[in-house]
């Protein structure tokens, strides 16, 4: 295109936005994104106020959600900090749904709105659509409908069974949310219609299943039960909430449904927790690239670029470990730097790059990007693509803290012999398996006291934190009988870490026996 035609259609500038201007920016951004072959869901931009933004914060970023006091707590905390000026609100929230919903805040300037559209509505959007974790674990076309279903269902339960009963149940489920996800198994797709149609069917079916299980209980009469009782569950189960939903003996059908709802929501957020660096880096790379492309085409005013670059660089700021405001590694900074670095490796590789990345050095960067975005999560992305050059520029160093030693120990730094180890350490830091305790359902004593036993497999001798007691109480509430937690010692033996006995059941259990 020639300069003369471009000059005539410069995009509007200035601080104030109008719907028309946003529409124009969106059109240009979408055009450039399509040139870069970004594959996205259709975009839906929604303009909201700061108060609505706080509402959205409080319900974990979702447009609808069921009611719970913890969201109220979140709202109060956000509101207070915002009003005191201790924090700014995020410029955007984007929802992994089809169409992809991006919230823009009315207080933002026109530049920020354009930045957010490029960042969220194209960057994150493409990531949601392409990345294997999101493709596997979330159903963007159904999530909003499902949340509406969940909210209505829980509201109904509150009317029928009382707010307190539902709140207790939700508290317990929330405590187990992190261990309520399938890490390896693909869940079936969500569909609102199916959910509703199947829900009552499932209720009766589930209850029958459970009763079936416990009907075998009194079979002690025969004396020839010398043989080893069959283990239940036959294999350890990683998804504790799922196990509760299917096998907790005393839950009512509506309680099982609520457990299921919490589990589904947890599963929906599971990919987000594992792709923060990649996802934010990806979105930042694209807002940077898309807007720069528009600038090169002559569509953007200089004042626009100044404001944009200022905002961009403050988000990408990475303080050093000894700065007073150091708060860990900034996922935006790391992610953005990594994607920029990959592009550099593709376009102008050094000898070091050729040695470390023989597959991608000199390849087409857009294809490499697409491949990397689709097939990795933080952990594997860092393990695969963090280059020595980047480790040097961030001056990374790994510190080991062993409580058996007097001093901390610098295990690797950004030098030739440290690169591999450093990269592994950083990758581990983003591995949910290392970050969160590995606790699984081990067995149910269904011929005895019906107690449930969990097993904790410590990683690097790390014990469980103090909160374990509270969580186990919640688990006992759901299970209805005694629950135990065993820790596997380094020598292979197990020790009892915590036990929560459940004495007498609540009234509803008695009622049930009376009905029988």
């Amino acid at each position, binding site marked *: 295109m020639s300069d003369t035609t471009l000059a005539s259609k410069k995009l509007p500038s200035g601080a104030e936005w109008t719907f028309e201007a946003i*529409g124009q920016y*969106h*059109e240009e951004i*979408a055009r450039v994104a399509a040139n870069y072959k970004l594959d996205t869901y*259709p*975009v839906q*931009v*929604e*303009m*909201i*106020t700061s*108060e*609505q933004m706080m*509402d959205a914060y409080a319900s974990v970023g979702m447009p609808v959600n069921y*009611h719970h*006091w913890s*969201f*109220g707590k979140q*709202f*109060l905390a956000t509101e*207070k900090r915002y009003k005191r000026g201790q924090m700014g609100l995020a410029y955007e929230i984007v929802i992994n749904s089809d*169409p992809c919903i991006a919230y823009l805040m009315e207080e933002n300037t026109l530049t920020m709105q354009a930045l957010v559209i490029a960042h969220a509505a194209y960057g994150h959007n493409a990531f949601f659509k392409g990345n294997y974790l999101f493709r596997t674990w979330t159903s963007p076309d159904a999530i909003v409908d499902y949340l509406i279903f969940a909210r209505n269902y829980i509201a109904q339960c509150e009317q029928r069974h009382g707010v307190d009963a539902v*709140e207790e149940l939700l508290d317990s489920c929330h*405590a187990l949310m*992190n261990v309520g996800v399938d890490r390896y198994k693909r869940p079936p797709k969500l569909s609102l219609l199916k959910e509703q149609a199947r829900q009552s069917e499932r209720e009766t079916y589930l209850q029958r299943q459970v009763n079936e299980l416990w009907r075998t209980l009194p079979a002690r009469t025969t004396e020839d039960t010398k043989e080893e009782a069959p283990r239940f569950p036959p294999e350890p189960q990683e998804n504790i909430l799922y196990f509760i939903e299917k096998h907790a003996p005393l839950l009512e059908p509506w309680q099982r449904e609520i457990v299921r709802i919490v589990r589904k929501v947890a599963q929906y957020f599971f990919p987000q927790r594992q792709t923060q660096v990649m996802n934010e880096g990806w979105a930042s790379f694209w807002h940077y690239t898309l807007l720069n492309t528009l600038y090169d085409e002559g569509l953007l005013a200089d004042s626009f670029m100044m404001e944009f670059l200022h905002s961009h660089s403050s988000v990408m700021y*990475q*303080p*050093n*470990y000894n*700065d*007073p405001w*150091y708060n*860990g*590694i900034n996922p935006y900074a790391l992610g953005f730097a990594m994607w920029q670095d990959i592009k550099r490796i593709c376009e102008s590789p050094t000898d070091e790059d050729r040695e470390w990345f023989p597959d991608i050095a000199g390849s087409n960067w857009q294809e490499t990007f697409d491949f990397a975005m689709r097939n990795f999560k933080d952990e594997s992305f860092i393990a695969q693509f963090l280059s020595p050059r980047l480790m040097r520029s*961030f*001056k990374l*160093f790994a510190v080991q*803290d062993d*409580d058996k030693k007097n*001093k*901390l*120990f*610098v295990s690797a*730094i950004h030098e030739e012999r*440290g690169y591999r180890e*450093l990269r592994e*350490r950083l990758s581990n830091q983003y591995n949910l398996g290392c970050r*969160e305790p590995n606790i699984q359902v081990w067995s149910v004593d269904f011929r005895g006291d019906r107690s449930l036993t969990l097993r904790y497999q*410590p990683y*690097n*001798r*790390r*014990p*469980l*934190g*103090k*909160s374990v007691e*509270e*969580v186990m109480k*919640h688990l006992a509430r759901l299970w209805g009988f005694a629950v135990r937690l065993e820790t596997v010692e380094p020598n292979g033996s197990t020790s009892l870490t915590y036990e929560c006995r459940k004495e007498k059941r609540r009234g509803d259990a008695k009622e049930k026996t009376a009905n029988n």
Partner: protein
Amino acid sequence: MVRIIDRRFDSKKKSTANRQRFMRRFKRQIRKAVADAIDGRSIRDLDSGEEISIPSKDLSEPSFQHGKEGIWEQVFTGNDRFASGDGIDRPMGGGGSGGGSGASNEGESEDDFVFQLSRDEFLDVFFDDLALPNLVRTELAKLTEYKTQRAGFTSDGVPTNINVVRSLRGAIGRRKALGAPLAARVQEIDEEIETLEQNASAHLDEIAALRDERSRLLIRIEAIPFIDRFDLRYNNRVRIPKPITQAVMFCVMDVSGSMDEQKKATGKRFFMLLYLFLRRNYEHIDVVFIRHHTIAKEVDEDEFFHSRESGGTVVSSALRLMTDIVRDRYPPGAWNVYGAQASDGDNWDNDSPICYDILDKELLALCRYFAYIEITTGEAQNLWRQYEGLTGHHPNFALQRIESLEDIYPVFRELFKKEPA
């Protein structure tokens, strides 16, 4: 094509439900915080919210987490001095999160969770403690009520308020006033023409000129508008605060040694509630604090609730002082006098009949209402027995024994009935 949706005017306060859940969940802590706040507040200060803080351990949301021990690895940025294999004293100098162990994974800090309670929420909790019926709550929580009243006429307003009679009267006046000089001239011309016509042939031109002028004048008179914008008058209504009377409220409290902080706190709520009731009906309220042991004294609010005294109790001293103050400063003709007395019922034996006499013969005649609460869990005391005798022939006297806060409201039931909003 992109879809841009303007959601700014959608329902606000989506989080209200969650906020209420939160309040509900932590009712106990909030009630305690409100009780503390009331102790620190003036009884007239009921129009602001309150900052509530709840220990964060009470509202933690537990989940399985690692403890601090064991081996931890963490990667930091900005290496400026370390080589591989270096040992560092823990905690690491300046390194925000103490060498990579616990700090980041033990999530919540131990600070209290602080949030702001709105005025309505504050009053709600306050009323909850006092077990107020709902109707009463809404009435009390209302801010000053206004009523509209006629106040003559104004020259602008909305069409529905046009006063036709006034407007037309104004129009007629204006037409008369504007037309008067012209009409006078017309009359003059008529007279002139009459004189000239006696000799018509000599004055033909003059007569024609006069007739011409006359018809022009008539046109000008016709041209005066029948009604004009500034003729319009509108009925004027003004909003005035409904209660325009004034009241004085006497808080009388026994501060002898037997009144402990607990009892004083109960008494304080009693006074606060009375104040709220009165504020609903009166625009201006004076509050007089009288405390007494063996001698009564008028004090300010702070001293009233917070300073300690000990010694015996002579209730009559306070009643006498109240009578004097009423006579002196608050003549019942100009002021509605309310009395509220809180005591643990202990009184010097020979004094109770004197109290009876003062109330019976003097004070109750001056008061709109006098309420007595006896804050005690034990037997009724001698003062109570004397006071009981008053209820029969003084409808404006109420008394109540109070064991817990819920017992306060019944004292006001009568009062509330008598003064419907």
